[in-house]
């Protein structure tokens, strides 16, 4: 049987998914521990043998991969005004599937350069100025990077009128760079796609090798993108559809992990209520936010600090645990698997808090503006009240007996009506962990990917 093999080199597990392209079905899923320290292919081979055992007469025509191994893609974003080009650059980096280690604005100082070096980014995204706007800042920052940070690739997505000078600076200093369109060509207009694509190209060309994964490329047809970018890709294709397959419309993906909670939304997010004025920087249609302080294990302790134990208590009123101690324990024991009822309950409470808070940070907020005439409303961010679907993925959701309870923590809440969260969406679960692999597959076979997604995401 001929099949397609999809690989996700994850931070912990290397996950394999075999797809029968004729029947448009998933044949098998296997996983094995990721082995990036020694040779990434060892872990792959382990999982590969399992899949060969499961389906004996299988032959793979093609193998595609995404990766978040070896720390995943890590970036810093540089812009001019914090709320404008610096924020736009951050959003572009997140949408490219990166972790954002730092966001810098205005003219970089040597101190900031030092901090940046310590963060060891894989790529720097350099923005600043609208097209035809401020040039001085981005040129200064290009010079600082060229002088002090020589070995990190730079994606330049700022004022295009500065690109000749930046090109000269980088060429002279042998910096690896890529110049693309501005992330904010006009004030408050966001244009993240060109930067995302440039980041992905550099990821494929340079980062995969730098992370010791070059050996994988002899066997597979390329590590095409970071895993989070694949998830966003899957969400986008499922929402929008293709030329031949209908999409399912506006949706949100909630991905609760050990270290972070990621939210993806595919929606324009225009106001759904009359009389609301939208203000601020435009939102990306396909938007990803990452909460580094909200997670089930590595970030359990930071979650407790960020949201207070009272809020966690709300979801486990009768727990025998001391909330802070339990969170600390989970952070120190990242491989802990909950067994008893109490342990499961506690994990679910953490996941509900993570969902609630991550959604609050992702969605738009409505503010009352009091005027002599009475109240009017302003909206910053996306209005997702009418989003049709919320899809859950990640271990705690997939293994939970009650995933809808967790997802509901992310929905609209009358006690906090400022947050424009979905009011009445259908809830789906990615029970076979296929979002990232389908996002990967969608690069080449979008129609089949969307059909498999529709079949495999189950209602809860």
């Amino acid at each position, binding site marked *: 049987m001929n099949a397609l093999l999809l690989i996700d080199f994850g931070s912990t597990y290397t996950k394999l998914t075999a797809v029968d392209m004729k029947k448009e079905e998933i044949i098998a899923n296997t996983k094995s521990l990721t082995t990036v320290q020694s040779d990434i292919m060892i872990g792959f081979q382990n999982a590969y043998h399992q899949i060969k055992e499961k389906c004996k007469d299988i032959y793979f025509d093609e193998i595609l991969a995404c990766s978040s191994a070896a720390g995943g893609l890590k970036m810093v974003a540089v812009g*001019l*005004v914090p*709320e*404008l*080009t610096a924020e736009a650059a951050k959003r572009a980096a997140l949408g490219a599937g990166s972790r954002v280690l730092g966001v810098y604005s205005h003219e970089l100082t040597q101190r900031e350069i030092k901090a940046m070096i310590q963060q060891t980014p894989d790529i720097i995204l350099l923005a*600043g*100025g*609208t097209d*035809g*706007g*401020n*040039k001085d800042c981005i040129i200064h920052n290009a010079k600082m990077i060229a002088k002090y940070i020589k070995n990190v690739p730079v994606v330049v997505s700022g004022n295009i009128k500065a690109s000749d000078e930046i090109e000269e600076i980088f060429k002279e200093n042998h910096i690896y760079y890529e110049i693309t369109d501005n992330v*904010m060509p*006009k*004030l*408050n207009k966001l244009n993240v796609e060109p930067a995302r694509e440039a980041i992905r190209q550099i990821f494929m060309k340079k980062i995969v090798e730098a992370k010791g994964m070059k050996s994988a490329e002899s066997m597979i047809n390329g590590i095409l993108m970071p895993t989070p970018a694949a998830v966003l890709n899957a969400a986008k294709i499922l929402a929008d559809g293709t030329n031949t397959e209908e999409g399912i419309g506006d949706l949100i993906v909630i991905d609760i992990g050990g270290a972070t909670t990621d939210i993806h939304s595919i929606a324009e997010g225009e106001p759904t209520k009359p009389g609301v*004025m939208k*203000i601020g920087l435009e939102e990306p249609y396909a938007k990803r936010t990452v909460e580094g302080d909200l997670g089930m294990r590595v970030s359990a302790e930071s979650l407790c600090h960020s949201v207070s134990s009272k809020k966690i208590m709300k979801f486990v009123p009768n727990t025998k645990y001391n909330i802070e101690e339990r969170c600390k324990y989970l952070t120190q024991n990242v491989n802990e698997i909950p067994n008893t009822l109490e342990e499961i309950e506690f994990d679910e409470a953490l996941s509900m808090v993570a969902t609630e808070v991550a959604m609050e940070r992702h969605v738009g907020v409505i503010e009352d*503006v*009091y*005027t*002599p005439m009475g109240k*009017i409303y*302003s909206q910053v961010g996306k209005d997702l009240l009418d989003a049709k679907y919320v899809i859950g993925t990640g271990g705690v959701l997939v293994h939970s007996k009650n995933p809808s309870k967790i997802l509901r923590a992310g929905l609209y809440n009358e006690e906090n009506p400022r947050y424009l969260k979905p009011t009445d969406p259908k809830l789906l679960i990615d029970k076979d962990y296929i979002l990232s692999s389908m996002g990967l597959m969608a690069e080449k076979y979008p129609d089949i990917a969307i059909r498999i997604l529709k079949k495999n995401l189950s209602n809860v």
Partner: protein
Amino acid sequence: MKKKIVLGVIGADCHAVGNKVLDFALTEAGFEVVNIGVLSSQEDFINAAIETDASAIIVSSLYGHGEIDCRGLREKCEEAGLKDILLYAGGNLVVGKQDWEPVRKRFQEMGFDRVYPPGTPPEVDIEHLKEDLKI
């Protein structure tokens, strides 16, 4: 190259029509207008001017709270590195029909280069812009 002008209506003011009229008139006159629209804070004006490298900020206020909303704008511009940016204000800057001279004086003391009484047509400030920016 076209001079860039940041235009907007300051504070909790949502009078949108005059803003559109001004945008149109200024664009016609050859300026590149960066229109941040209604409900704009002082920070919105400043941020826009920084990113776009604008030569002037034109503040409208129609609902009568202009004086409170505009206070401190010049100081914040200086703080943000916008040293020589032109600041104009107009619309219905204060409540009702007040004696204009004291109002003008107060706004100029606040650091506005030009201040316009109610009913000033866009042509007037366009002439002034050309003069002040030496076009």
